[in-house]
């Protein structure tokens, strides 16, 4: 599959140069998850990063005596998994496929090695991920506002 098909329109990487997409594609493979299948467990070593192509992934956390608490769901084009980027490289939350899900999985060990070796590749990739992360942070902050609550309860 061509790099553009993997990381094209609707993914955070769409803005990267063709040459960088080619490199990215060499670390990528398509994977699928059945409904209910875990991508990763909270606390486990963080390896891998996924761009959802179809389906839906929930980010969750363990709650004693309850089903895992879902903090967020991620759909097509969205990135799942950040903890591989920074030490201590352990998953902070878990992730599970809510519906049958197709994703592009990145070999993050490779990616990190290439990025460290060649900042002219690493920097735009990191900036792309940062932009996505910022959007996620802003949405989370918006949710903290509890805008739909009754005004006097907020």
């Amino acid at each position, binding site marked *: 599959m061509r790099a553009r098909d993997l990381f094209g329109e609707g993914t955070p990487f769409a803005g990267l140069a063709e040459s960088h997409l080619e490199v990215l594609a060499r670390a990528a493979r398509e994977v699928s998850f059945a409904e209910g299948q875990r991508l990763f467990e909270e606390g486990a070593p963080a390896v891998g990063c996924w761009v959802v192509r179809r389906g839906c992934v929930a980010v969750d956390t363990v709650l004693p005596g309850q089903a895992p608490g*879902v903090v967020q769901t991620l759909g*097509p084009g*969205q990135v799942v998994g950040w903890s591989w980027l920074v030490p201590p490289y352990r998953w902070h939350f878990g992730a599970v496929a809510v519906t049958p899900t197709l994703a592009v999985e990145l070999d993050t060990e490779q990616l990190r090695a290439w990025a460290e070796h060649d900042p002219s590749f690493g920097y735009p990739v990191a900036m792309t991920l940062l932009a996505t992360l910022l*959007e996620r942070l*802003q949405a989370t902050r*918006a*949710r903290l506002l509890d*805008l*739909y609550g009754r005004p006097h309860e907020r």
Partner: protein
Amino acid sequence: MSGDPLLPLPYVVTDRAPETDDTVTLRLKPVRLTIPRLRPGQFTMLYVRGVGEIPISISGNLSVVDGSLTHTVREVGAVSRALCAAPVGTVIGVRGPFGTGWDLPSACDTDVLVVAGGLGLAPLRPVVLAALAQRWRYRRLILVVGARTPDDLLYRRELDEWARREDMAVVLTVDRPTQGWRGQVGFVTEPLSWLALDPSATTAFLCGPEPMMRFCASALLRRGILAGQIRLSLERNMQCGLGQCGHCQLGPLLVCWDGPVVNYAAVGALLTIKEL
């Protein structure tokens, strides 16, 4: 029809359907005379005897022929509490219609993207109903609804019906899921970043708390949708509905007159001026 726009006409509550624990949908039937027909996005002033009067957007199907009105009301103050509690048979004073509409027909031959947050779905429901009634006029119809929890979603049964339709896409997202929730979890801006959109031919209709609309507009601008293709419905203190009482000013706008539905290109900069 009444000649004096300050004079209410008596309507009677013919149906009362609770939507959530603090929100009720009322159906009002004219006792005798009817106000002129509303367009989606417009509002009426509803008066409860001896309590007061508040602006409420129309939330129902506007193609009904008996002149009846549908309003969805959330109890946040004295008048809305009285409206929510009004049993079938209560006489309500109605003035209107007031303000600008969503002008759905101008979105003809574009994708219609409807984004609602919380009670914001109520004024947008007539847009969805009108688009479905003349489905061939529009390209894709996408509805994104955000709510605090699944229990806070309005028109739950209708949303499920719409979600099953082939000719529209429905994305429901909540801030806080409850057990058994199968939809999205996240702020209503998030689907806007991943939904397949055609920025050059999309008309967006936003309604919800003002910050939510601002954030959604930003998300849509990032996707390449122009400010002029984004419409939103504003809320301010409105008492007359005629641009004469002065309460609803937002900078140069009289929201009851120039709005409530306005173009984001015209108001985007105003919305971030503190205490305007």
